[in-house]
């Protein structure tokens, strides 16, 4: 356990020293803020025009603006993560290999699982820290909405976001362990994420078995539910499985370094 904690501390420390992390988090929060404002404005205007219409034609006028904004927001955050995660995971193993520090770790009384978990938990912590300011937007929403949206909606939304993060970070971490070159790691990871995203598009509309399988595998299909406040156990299992699978593969990948020539 000591080893795992030591690695965790070191990784987290490195994130806070590295300019990359600050830039990525900054950009992420800036975009989040921007899109949150856009979504808010859009739905408010929408609801106003609906009310006007309702007054004119006698149609029901309810859009639940807060819920719509939340849903849109969480959906957005998940999509943003697809773009920024590669930036954060690209260096996790590539750097170590390049500097030769993997040799230090692998000749110390610490096993690969501790190394992988320590690094992984550090990246997850960084994510949690990155998401913290977004709670500010939601607090704002809450103060100004009447009636307030149910707590469950927000919790489900964040749960979804964290599960997606867990899966994406695991995948990014695996790809990073495959190469010494950070750029290659970033490109491959982006490609993989894009692939997962597009799986959903490929399956849209079709109703064959293949299409359903593809749809299940798509990352975006699942978090839509979370954004709406629905916690679907099959989605939870999906994300947890993804995470476990790629963490396992990362451990194997690290282990395979012991068999290489250089």
């Amino acid at each position, binding site marked *: 356990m000591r080893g795992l904690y030591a690695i965790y501390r070191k990784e987290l420390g490195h994130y806070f020293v590295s300019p990359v992390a600050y830039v990525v988090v900054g950009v992420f929060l800036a975009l989040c803020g921007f899109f949150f404002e856009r979504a808010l404005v859009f739905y408010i205007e929408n609801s106003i025009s609906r009310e006007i219409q309702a007054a004119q034609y006698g149609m029901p006028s309810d859009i639940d603006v807060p819920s719509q904004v939340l849903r849109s927001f969480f959906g957005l955050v998940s999509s943003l993560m697809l773009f920024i995660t590669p930036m954060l995971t690209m260096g996790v193993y590539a750097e170590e290999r390049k500097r030769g520090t993997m040799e230090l770790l692998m000749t110390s*009384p610490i096993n690969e699982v501790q190394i992988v978990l320590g690094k992984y938990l550090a990246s997850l912590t960084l994510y949690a820290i990155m998401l913290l300011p977004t709670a500010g937007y939601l607090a704002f929403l809450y103060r100004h909405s009447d009636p307030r949206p149910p707590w469950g909606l927000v919790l489900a939304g964040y749960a979804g976001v964290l599960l997606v993060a867990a899966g994406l970070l695991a995948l990014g971490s695996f790809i990073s362990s495959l190469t010494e070159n950070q750029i290659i790691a970033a490109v491959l990871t982006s490609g993989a994420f894009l692939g997962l995203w597009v799986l959903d598009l490929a399956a849209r509309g079709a109703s064959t078995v293949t299409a359903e399988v593809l749809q299940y595998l798509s990352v975006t299909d699942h978090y839509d539910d979370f954004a709406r406040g629905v916690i679907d156990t099959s989605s939870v299992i999906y994300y947890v499985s993804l995470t476990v699978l790629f963490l396992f593969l990362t451990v194997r990948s690290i282990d395979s370094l012991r068999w290489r*020539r250089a």
Partner: protein
Amino acid sequence: MIEVQELSKSFGPVTAVDHVSFTVNKGEILGFLGPNGAGKTTTMRILTGFMPATSGTARVAGFDVLQDSLQVRRHIGYLPESPPLYPDMSVEGYLDFVLRIKNVPAEQRSARLGEVLEKTNIADKRDELIKHLSRGYKQRVGLAQALVHDPDVIILDEPTVGLDPKQIIEVRHLIKGLAGSHTIILSTHILPEVSMTCDRVVIIHKGRIAAVDTPQNLTTQLKGGQRIQVEAEAPRAPFEQLLRQIPGARTVQVEAAHAAGRLTATVEAATGTDIRSQIAAKIVASGWGLYELKGASLSLEDIFLQLTTDEAAPAQRLS
């Protein structure tokens, strides 16, 4: 403390280490000598638990390197060819990290940290970021990392590379000082370093052991295989022929000497023979003037070159 038996490592068709066997006793300093690509680093990586061998066994501190890898790693400090440093960490932060991953309990960490900073003479840079250090300091931080947890066994791959002469002497003193309470393997290209610091030497060539012995023994044993300098006043062709005909003379090289009319000859004699008296007798008998007859025993450098340049099976040449 370290027992290696018939250790082999192949990467596909390439054999990097070929049935290597040697032991290192507790408290000893063993030198690993060999040209680049001889298999030194690979052997060290097997001993430190980094990679598994293809066949053969190795035991460190009583633990098998393959079966009890984690135990072995608890007892080892390792400095690879290029020191495994994190540029963005401070020296102190880095060594603290190493202490933690080497499983040193919290109460002992600051004491060990302080000790190793003193020993390797880097205490004045303790708060400095590693990326700002000079090459020499970086190398010493690398050395510190191998020593900080006070391991029983220390394995150093070219520990003095990149250091200036003063620092090299300090490091050698440091290493010598560690003997007795620690068991050390160090690999190097610098031959005088081996003679100065090591109790015994293993010469490796193409994955095989060419020699295992103390530096003194190696030079003594080959003393008979001397290089003899002769300076005589003699006609060239007969002189050369006479020398070549002496039994035991392996190679003869004749050149004009500085003084006019004289020749110098360098004769390499076969192992175990001392042909100086024969040379003297023959030259005098031919009526030529003999001005110098000097035997130089092969230096470790010569032995090293001899053992690692020839393609023939190395073991035979030492018998």
